[in-house]
């Protein structure tokens, strides 16, 4: 009888222990997500925007990963002074210290003097820049 009770108790104990370990794993992963997100540092440089044909605006820029962890850029958004937005999908992975020069064509209505754009990282960070249309 004692053995049976001990056997049952042991099983319950192991089950609860397993669940606690799983929960601890999730907590750690969750904290790591936030830590990684806060470690991301991306910067723009050499941003040049020129007016193309029609409503097309050609934006050339260099994006650098100045943080300690790899960064994936998944989308770039552009907005004009008339509150119109457009976006394009990106797939750029930057290792720490790496740079990448890109050229994007935005289709935004009307003539404008400034353009605001920002990239979205896979960890949900937004990095923005703005430039005058040349």
């Amino acid at each position: 009888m004692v053995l049976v009770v001990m056997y049952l108790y042991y099983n319950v104990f192991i089950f609860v222990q397993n669940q606690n370990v799983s929960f601890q794993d999730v907590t750690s992963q969750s904290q790591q997500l936030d830590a990684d997100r806060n470690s991301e540092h991306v910067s723009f440089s050499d941003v040049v925007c020129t007016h193309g044909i029609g409503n097309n605006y050609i934006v050339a820029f260099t994006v650098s990963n100045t943080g300690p962890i790899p960064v994936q850029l998944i989308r770039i958004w552009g907005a004009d002074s008339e509150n119109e937005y457009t976006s394009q999908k990106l797939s750029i992975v930057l290792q720490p210290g790496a740079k990448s020069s890109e050229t994007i064509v935005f289709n935004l209505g009307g003539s404008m003097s400034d353009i605001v754009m920002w990239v979205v990282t896979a960890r949900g960070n937004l990095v923005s820049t703005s430039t005058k249309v040349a």
Partner: protein
Amino acid sequence: MAKSCRRKNILTVLNFRILVPKMLRKLLFDKRAVSVAVSTMIITAGVIAMGIAVLYWTYSWGNMANKQYVDNMQTGSNAMEERISFECISYSSSSKNLTVNLLNWGKAKNTGIARIYIWDNNHEPVGSYSGSDLVLKDITTNEPIQGNVLDIGNEGYITFNVGLALDPYGNNSYFSIRVVTQRGRSFDGSFVKL
């Protein structure tokens, strides 16, 4: 011959009347076991049957408790790993539509949006939107996302009509927005009415 036959019949009836009550009496009122072995077997069988019934009952309850515990743990874990980011929030003064572009950058699958709250600069409630107002659409294809949920790494947007809620506020007014997921997590963002 006939006389002897009748006598035999009378004796048989008498024997039956005397014997049967005697056997019944013995069976009902005799406290001695038929046999020790048989009684032990009957008791053992009864105990085993009861034991199996109790074991099955406790096993069923244990199984249900186990399932409920695991489900609760899973729900809590998924909620903890949910992360939503605001890619772009835009308001159209002409159509009174607010468009909220979202990214699920967490580790939880099937993140659904249950409610959206908006506050003004003084943290006065401007509106709350839920139910059929909130239809997630794909940013690239503009098609409704199947299941109305965002999978891991997926982007989507919600466009809903805010009516006259933002009309009293002038241009460049600042608003806070809160997205509440179906698992109960909330994520805050902000936008400016241009």
